[in-house]
């Protein structure tokens, strides 16, 4: 299997990688007798990382440079993530930081939910998702009137601990500052300034 190129899809590191083999060799080397299709698959998350300092494949033994790290193959060895993470808990924490999970609560609902904000492309999608999740209508946002006309308003707690109305700031700014979401009953929303 090839080296760490698996992690970088955009940069064609293989082209610039120093190696002693002839140009054109090494890119489709099949390992050993298996002849399996070279099925590089970059790891979905960083949690598989671990063994980046291993020795290179047999085919690369002719390299005298620092050996390319052997790519960790997805799902090999076959150990469940739970077990891997338990034995190396710090890694698990780092991995959990990827994605942007925020808690969503709603007044009157018994359960908290967690959603990944990075899944949504903008406010309309997010609001639709919230509507689906809690089975209610939030309605349209207007800068002047907030979510007037609907029973509920989505609010969020930002980095400073202030509760703001969702939709007040550009989406990207929202993504970077939102810590928690809370859907409140419309009457309480009056207190929240629009565009505050």
């Amino acid at each position, binding site marked *: 299997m090839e080296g760490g190129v698996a992690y970088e*899809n955009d940069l064609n590191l293989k082209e610039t990688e120093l190696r002693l083999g002839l140009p054109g060799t090494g890119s489709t080397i099949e*390992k*050993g*007798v*298996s*002849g*399996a*299709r*070279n*099925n*590089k*698959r*970059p*790891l*979905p998350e960083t949690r*598989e990382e*671990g*063994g980046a300092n*291993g*020795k290179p494949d047999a085919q690369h033994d002719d390299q005298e440079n620092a050996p390319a790290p*052997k790519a*960790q*193959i*997805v*799902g*090999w*060895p*076959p*150990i*469940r*993530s*739970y*077990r*891997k993470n*338990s*034995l190396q808990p710090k890694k698990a924490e780092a991995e959990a930081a990827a994605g942007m999970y925020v*808690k969503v609560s709603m007044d009157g609902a*018994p*359960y*908290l*939910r*967690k959603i990944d904000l990075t899944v949504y492309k903008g406010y309309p999608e997010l609001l639709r998702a919230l509507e689906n999740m809690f089975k209610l209508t939030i309605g349209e946002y207007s800068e002047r009137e907030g979510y007037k006309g609907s029973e509920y308003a989505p609010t969020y707690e930002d980095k400073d601990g202030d509760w703001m109305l969702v939709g007040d700031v550009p989406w990207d700014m929202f993504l970077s500052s939102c810590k928690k979401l809370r859907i409140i009953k419309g009457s309480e929303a009056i207190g929240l300034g629009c565009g505050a």
Partner: protein
Amino acid sequence: MITNKKPRSSDTDSNYMRDDRTEMSEDDDRSPPSDSIANGSCPTRTCTPGSGSGSGSSSIPEYSAPYPDRVLENVLENVLWFLTSRKDRNAASLVCRSWYRVEAMTRSDLFIGNCYAVSPERATSRFTRVRSVTLKGKPRFADFNLMPPNWGAHFAPWVSATAKAYPWLEKIHLKRMSVTDDDLALLAESFSGFKELVLVCCDGFGTSGLAAVASKCRQLKVLDLIESEVSDDEVDWIMCFPDTETCLESLIFDCVECLVDFDVLERLVVRSPSLKKLRLNRFVSIGQLYRLMVRAPQLTHLGTGSFSPSEDVAQGELELDYVSAFAACKSLVCLSGFREIVPDCLPAIYPVCANLTSLNFSYANISAEQLKPIISNCHKLQTFWVLDSICDEGLQAVATTCKELRELRVFPFDPREDIEGPVSEVGLQAISEGCRKLQSILYFCQRMTNAAVIAMSKNCPDLVIFRLCIMGRQRPDHVTGEPMDEGFGAIVMNCKKLTRLAVSGLLTDTAFAYIGKYGKIVRTLSVAFAGDSDMGLKYVLEGCPRLQKLEIRDSPFGDTALLSGLHHYYNMRFLWMSACRLSHQGCQQIAQALPHLVVEVIKHEDTVHMDDYADTLYMYRSLAGRRHDVPQFVSIL
């Protein structure tokens, strides 16, 4: 765990007795032994007509004629999950109609080995008096990130169907299903007499869902969460159990990665006098464990939590008399946990060693020296899970003492490929010589030899499960440099009871020829980075009539090999092939030839592949046809 099979009936009409029932897989990881009767997921109308009773050949028996229970039991066992030609099915169903009906009425344990093999509606309309449901969802390779998330196996349609059909339902066992908090809430609402919930390798829910179950299921005896992913919704679910005395017999939550309020937990234990099994998560310190043990000396199964002092150590914690606490647990037979073990605390468990039948040290990074004083007292040990940190030397100690050992699992502390491993053929050889009654082994290592594997095949004739994972891909015998063919060949040749096999190391088609030739009762086979050509897979598909579950990754098997199994796929629960050499056309051919097979081709976004190739093939027989919850990365051919 090996479950006891019920005795087969005397039916021997071999045309119908093709043994392809979807039995509870007896060799599943940690599946709770099911008391379900044989298989449950065969709404096919095929029954065995060739039974001893004379009613088979006459006209359809009167429905009201009484059937002795024993006959019904035999019939239950022989309903086959076997999709034959339409003609055979029609003929058989005419003969057995009332048997079919009576059986459907008397089945109380519904087992469904593949949640997509049958629709919930169909299952619930056929079986009307079910009290316990077992469902399995994703294939095992999903555990290793080989399946993209959100593939399916949703519990939701099942919980809503069973909520309507079986309001008296008492038990639900799920494995590799996606379960949401809403599902759990519905469960809690719908089944007033609900007693037992077991979730193994499930995900999609959080402590909110657990809270619902705890608070509404007042008859709850068992709440077992095993290797499941539970999200932290900041709900104190332990607090949600009723304030009164509970019926709890088993509470297993070692996989729940959330803090629990210890005082609340302690009060729960105090008011659960029937509690026998308690497995704590790693947020419970050893001092807290002590308090619980003192409250519950009747425990038979204990998961010790972190087994280390809490971070802000109360001085008193270190001076507690742990030995006495353990000594007081006279019924303790199964010990696990040790999540963040401080080895100095280990001697506390000495008093219980002599009685232990099961010990799980697989999260405890301990050395051979630390293990020896413990293991040398464990004469009755039958199940032992451990980390390879104990080295070959530790395994030798196990072999010396644990003569009753039935199941051994050796996990790698550091699961990388290119390191010097602490266990090797030396440990395997030692175990084979000392533990002659061994039935099941899972062994991760970096180096192995054919000789050791051959030795095990001869020394341990009772082996039912042999799973060897040489972590470096395609590693040969490290002494002779030869492929590992002979070792695995010896296993299938000599271990006459073998039903589950996982192979690794450098393997040529010869290994598969052996498996095809000798592995006549093999039901589950796992293959990775092995074989030379299509012949390998052909040998297996043509040679193993009992094969039910075949999972293959990164092996050079292509369409020709795939097609060679057409005669057999209806007899299997599933076939998984990822990163092999299958093309879309090949998969399409299968789909066309076998209409009752659901052929899923799963695409991985980030794979470098040629468009023709099918990244991952997952196919399974089904009466439900293509499922309706297909995510966009799956195409069903």
